[in-house]
């Protein structure tokens, strides 16, 4: 009778299987405190010992099988997102995937390929182009859509384009409203989409943390934060009347770290803007802005500096701050992200004005 061996093996099993020692104790000795007692020098009859050892061996074998079937946190998130996408494909008449070319969109696109494999995702991609995106984003977008074999709809607000709306001439708020928010609403109305996937995460911002995965929008694309539909389990109410729609967020429960880790693990393509490189930038109100093309008006005496910079989020280049960084590989980026003390949206000029700004924008139809 080797009681010490029994205890050690039980402890090992607890460690590898994630069960508590008392659970194992209950399973093999019919007594949650039994193992602790043995550890403290307690004794058992030979018969009890043999039964316990037999039960432990069974548990060990079971744990071996289960270990091969263990789901990691990322695998769970992946399965959840796939479930959400399939639900939309099955229930909604005319869905679309909003593709903003950023890292979250890249993950979303990858998940869509997985969800419907071997079929192609049964919906098009749509990009609302503000005409001020980083030029690399546009090249990247066109290439990826072709590789994946999905239709790509690009929408530019025609009135905004005609009026030459831009962040410098009209200010960031007007530019974002006309080219992004109004542009998006136009595009959704034009194609009569009843569901649009977006890559937003709940950890991004405090009003997003409150939003449902299937987020209802009325005829005017408004989000009514105080009156959201209950959303229990993974049963999603996808029903809308004509003109109303759903914004669907399959990445709701992902954190920024999850996204980066998943990109790394799955080798997902992302624009190289996320990795550091010497790039020409100017400093405006403490924010580093990339000189992406010659539309960026330089102040008198201002000359672009070459700096090692990368971006934590991608949007309109004049509205997206770069961070100085030496991180030229993905793990280095993740490392920096984990060591940093500011949140990712800080680089985005648009959020930092009023406290409720994102909520207001969403009420007005912003994604």
């Amino acid at each position, binding site marked *: 009778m080797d009681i010490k061996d029994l205890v050690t093996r039980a402890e090992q099993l607890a460690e590898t299987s994630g069960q508590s020692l008392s659970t194992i104790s209950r399973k093999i000795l019919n007594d949650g405190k039994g193992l602790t007692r043995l550890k403290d020098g307690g004794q058992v009859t030979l018969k009890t010992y043999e039964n316990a050892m037999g039960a432990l061996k069974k548990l060990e074998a079971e744990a071996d099988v289960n270990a091969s079937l263990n789901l990691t946190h*990322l695998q769970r998130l992946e399965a959840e997102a796939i*479930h959400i996408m399939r639900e939309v*494909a099955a229930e909604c008449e005319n869905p679309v995937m909003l593709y903003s070319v950023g890292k979250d969109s890249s993950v979303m696109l990858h998940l869509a390929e997985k969800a419907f494999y071997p079929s192609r995702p049964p919906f098009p991609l749509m990009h609302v182009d503000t005409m001020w995106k980083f030029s690399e984003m546009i090249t990247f977008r066109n290439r990826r859509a072709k590789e994946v074999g999905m239709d790509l709809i690009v929408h530019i607000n025609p009135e905004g384009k005609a009026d030459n709306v831009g962040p410098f001439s009209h200010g960031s708020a007007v530019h974002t409203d006309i080219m992004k928010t109004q542009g998006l609403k136009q595009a959704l109305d034009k194609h009569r989409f009843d569901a649009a996937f977006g890559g937003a995460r709940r950890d991004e911002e*405090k009003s997003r943390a409150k939003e449902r995965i299937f987020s209802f929008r009325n005829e005017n694309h408004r989000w009514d*934060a105080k009156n959201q539909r209950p959303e229990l389990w993974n*049963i999603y*109410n996808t*029903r809308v009347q004509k003109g109303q729609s759903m914004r669907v967020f399959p990445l709701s429960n992902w954190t920024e770290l999850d996204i980066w880790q998943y990109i790394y693990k799955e080798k997902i393509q992302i624009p190289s803007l996320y990795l550091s490189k010497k790039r020409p930038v100017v400093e405006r109100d403490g924010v580093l802005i990339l000189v992406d093309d010659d539309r960026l008006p330089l102040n008198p005496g201002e000359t672009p500096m070459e700096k090692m910079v990368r971006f934590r989020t991608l949007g309109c280049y004049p509205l997206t701050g770069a961070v100085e960084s030496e991180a030229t590989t993905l793990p280095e980026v993740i*490392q920096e992200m984990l060591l940093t003390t500011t949140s990712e949206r800080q680089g985005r000029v648009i959020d930092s004005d009023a406290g409720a700004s994102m909520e207001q924008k969403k009420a007005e139809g912003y994604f």
Partner: protein
Amino acid sequence: MSHLDSLIAEDIIAYLDAQENKSFLRFITCGSVDDGKSTLIGRLLYDSKLIYEDQLAAIEKDSKKSGTQGDKVDLALLVDGLAAEREQGITIDVAYRFFSTDKRKFIVADTPGHEQYTRNMATGASTADAAILLIDCRHGVQVQTRRHAFIASLLGIKHVVCAINKMDLVDFDQKVFNDIEYDFRDFAKDLGFNDITCIPMSALDGDNVTRASERANWYRGPHLLKYLEDVDVDSADLERPFRLPVQWVNRPNLDFRGFSGTIASGIINVGDEVMVVPSGKRSKVKSIVTYDGELDRAREDMAITLTLKDEIDISRGDIICRTDSPCEQADQFQAHILWMTEKELFPGRQYLIKTANKTVPASITNIKYRVDVNDLSETAVKTLGLNEIGVCTINTGAPIAFDPYQDNRKTGNFIIIDRASNETVGVGMLDFALRRAKNVHWQDLDVSKQIRAAQKNQKPVMLWFTGLSGSGKSTIANLVEKRLLDLGRHTYTLDGDNVRHGLNNDLGFTKADRIENIRRIAEVGKLMVDAGLITLTSFISPYSAERLMARELQDDGEFIEIYVNTPLEVAEQRDVKGLYAKARAGLIKNFTGIDSEYQEPENPEITINTVHMSADEAAEQIVAYLTENGYLEGTS
């Protein structure tokens, strides 16, 4: 900083590996208004160093503007993210936040305490494995505490922390703690929780949140974070029966037909024998397809695509099971329902219910009782109002595959959708089937008379009232219809008033016209029966031949002739409408009984003798006949 964190700088790859192998827990905070739920989450995030500098700066600014703690940082603002919440200092909707420790990753849902927003609390609770129920130690167990505990238990949460909060305000008095613990355990003893852990706490100051409290040195148990790291949720017991609710049929081309879905429970291997519910068709698993390659086996929570050896008809809404333990199917259930909208639930009204993968029309046929959240007592009620919980019988328009919620949280649940507004108006948990759907192989779900009738929980039938003018046909027919309506049945009455003025306004009272009149009524009635309705017709219909024609138009058992037998003398004596007098005076021609004959029915299913019986008794007799002969039960 925890020890893993030092790995970030030293060996980022090793750190990422460690992240991947962390276990995972979803939990909620709940409890009555202002008991400190949001503050607690704020404190957890703050103490686990998960607040970025810019976020903290924003909170500090907001605390001055709308905080409830004077100059101190109001940690609740970290979670109360909506403008209205900050203005009112309350939580309105559930916030999802994420944090992790060396051991575990957590998703926490901070739910609102206000009764008005109970449905948002239920939203958060439905995906949680553990609940932290907060109690303000100055107020003890409140109605809302009980309601939340009950809802948590109803939704299947097994692990509960009772966080007795604001202990700083009572000097960490152990007696206060003990009294509340006693009360709560007494209330919760029948709620089916696996374990209840009571912790004295100050969410505001951080006592027993992420570190043991010195001020509560009499308390020996774990602090909250330790509990959360250690609680053994055993969420995936892979030995449970295999269930794959088919979500989407994957058909990229003619050679591939796969069934995609997320495995609700159990394990499946290539080669396993499977059965499809409700069709009952069987086959074997040919392959388990994923983007990352084919698998030999797959487990609960994986989103996969199965292909089968045989070409069998499977669609969204079906559940693929292993033949060793298939799930049940039925179209009548008992269920617990939580009602979530101001418009009350009325039995008999048609809703849509959506299960894991299927949407079907359904009605709540009966509310057995409402559960009083205060003492869990049962009260008979006619309706359920906002936030009320009842045990009901429901009837679905088509059979659905299911498991009792107790056995499976993913195949025993449903939401209730209002057909007009599309709102989610309630949610339910199936207890058991009241009657199994009889025909297991019923696949032909084209809308048919049977399906329409099953949806109405009745057998369609034509009740053909015949008898002299003034015999009481319409009076009795109306009473029968009212009674059926009270029983939640679906009816329509065709009578002289609604037929003669429209459909038949081209017909007079000659023999030919009378025959044509009856023919049209019989045909229209047949359509109504086909629509699934109990159809009442009330016409003199004096000729046997026409009544026979009407009978022959209907399917077997769908025609009930009711002879309202009132002798001519009696009818004439009553002469409610003064018609007999006019006929006798020659003012009306072809009046049945006077100058046109009435052929008495020879074998009517029901004869009513109005001389000996009141109209009410007559109606009772007819409804009793329908009940006894099974017309008021669903078909399937």
